[in-house]
């Protein structure tokens, strides 16, 4: 989407910043100078989403649900509480609902109006999720979207698309692949991709990952 990146890598000179870089720098500097934001807080925010919150969180939730029927039941009944058991809470994950794929039914999540996404279990959303092609097509042509992700479902599979118009955040629980009986939760989590938890992918098969 951004056609504005004229890269000059000599950043010693201010006039080599792109307009948006200059604009963001100006905003940050003004807000710090006026005491509106603590510059150290900005670094903690970035670090949180770079290193502490990401799709591995959601993969652990799915792996636990696959392994532990009692946990799966709690995840179905009250996903917010079940996900909080693993320590995943907070911003853009305050109200969670789990939606479960079966051989007959496939779930896909979108936010047509902006970019609502379950940050607490998946981290920050990818660019494609936040962009007009996905936002416009997911609700009218999900099979076409899935084809772009290399996923073809049987013609009879029901597809349920959840448009996140409120603060309810949806986590897709992909179908557990065959041939994973007895696997540890950590090993199962390796099969759960970010896209599988959005619903634009499926869980990996055992053959796709190193033993």
């Amino acid at each position, binding site marked *: *989407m*951004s056609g504005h*990146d004229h890269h000059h890598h000599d950043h010693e000179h201010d006039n080599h910043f792109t307009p*948006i870089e*200059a*604009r*963001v*720098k*100006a*905003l*940050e500097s*003004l*807000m710090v100078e*006026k*005491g*509106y*934001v*603590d510059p*150290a*807080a*900005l*670094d*903690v*925010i*970035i670090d*949180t989403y*770079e290193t502490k919150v990401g799709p591995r969180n959601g993969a652990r939730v799915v792996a636990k649900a696959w392994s532990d029927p009692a946990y799966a039941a709690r995840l179905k009944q009250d996903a917010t509480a079940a996900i909080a058991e693993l320590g995943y809470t*907070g*911003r853009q994950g*305050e*109200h969670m609902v789990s939606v479960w794929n079966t051989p007959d039914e496939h779930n896909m999540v979108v936010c*047509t*109006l*902006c970019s609502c996404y379950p940050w*607490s279990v998946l*981290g*920050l959303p990818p*660019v*494609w999720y*936040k*962009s*007009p*092609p996905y*936002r*416009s*097509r997911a*609700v*009218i042509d*999900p099979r076409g*979207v899935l084809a*772009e992700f290399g996923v073809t479902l049987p013609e*009879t599979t029901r*597809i349920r*698309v*959840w*448009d996140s*118009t*409120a*603060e*309810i955040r949806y986590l897709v629980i992909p179908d557990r692949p065959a041939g994973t009986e007895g696997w540890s939760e950590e090993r199962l989590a390796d099969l759960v991709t970010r896209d599988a938890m959005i619903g634009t992918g499926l869980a990996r098969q055992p053959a796709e990952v190193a033993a």
Partner: protein
Amino acid sequence: MNGAQDLGGQMGFGPVAPEKDEPLFHAPWEARALAVTLAAGGMGHWSIDESRHARESLRPADYLSSSYYEIWIKGLSTLLERHGFLSAEEMASGEVSQAPAQPKRVLKAEMVPGVLAKGGPTERPATSPQRFQPGDKVRTINMNPTGHTRLPRYARAKLGTVVLVHGAHVFPDASAHGQGEQPQWLYTVEFTGPELWGKGADPTLSVSIDAWESYLEPA
């Protein structure tokens, strides 16, 4: 508002084209944009609903030609000026030229983990009885407000079924405009593909939205 953001069912945008091994941020400025936006919101002067409305209020050509974090920065600039924190002149020059406003609070580094872990839950005590139950047939209303709403155009005046009930939640249509939280019962309502898109649409498709009670009438 019927702005460029209301994208469900629009056409002509081309392929989704996911980027392989996409980085979290495509440039350092994007990370700074995320951080300043969250921290500015942390001053407590606008709701997330108002911030969404600021973004969707961009002129359509501007919205659609801006990258995601460009939209955030443009929305943030609107909010900072509207609430008296920065003037347009200051943002254009990058130089302070008016006295600082007093924020209600400032997000300090040590507060960040707790604040992010708590988030901003929107559920509130209900102030009216729940009108609909799972399984109820409902029709979304036809409305075209000029202000913020979370009822997408593709799902207006459509017949659906209540699937989930979520309690009462802050009502964005009010919250975005400084009219208070005005919580309403919130429902997940599901529509068939043919109901939304016409007789020839994929019959295996269902689409749901999360709808506040005032978006719904019994069917």
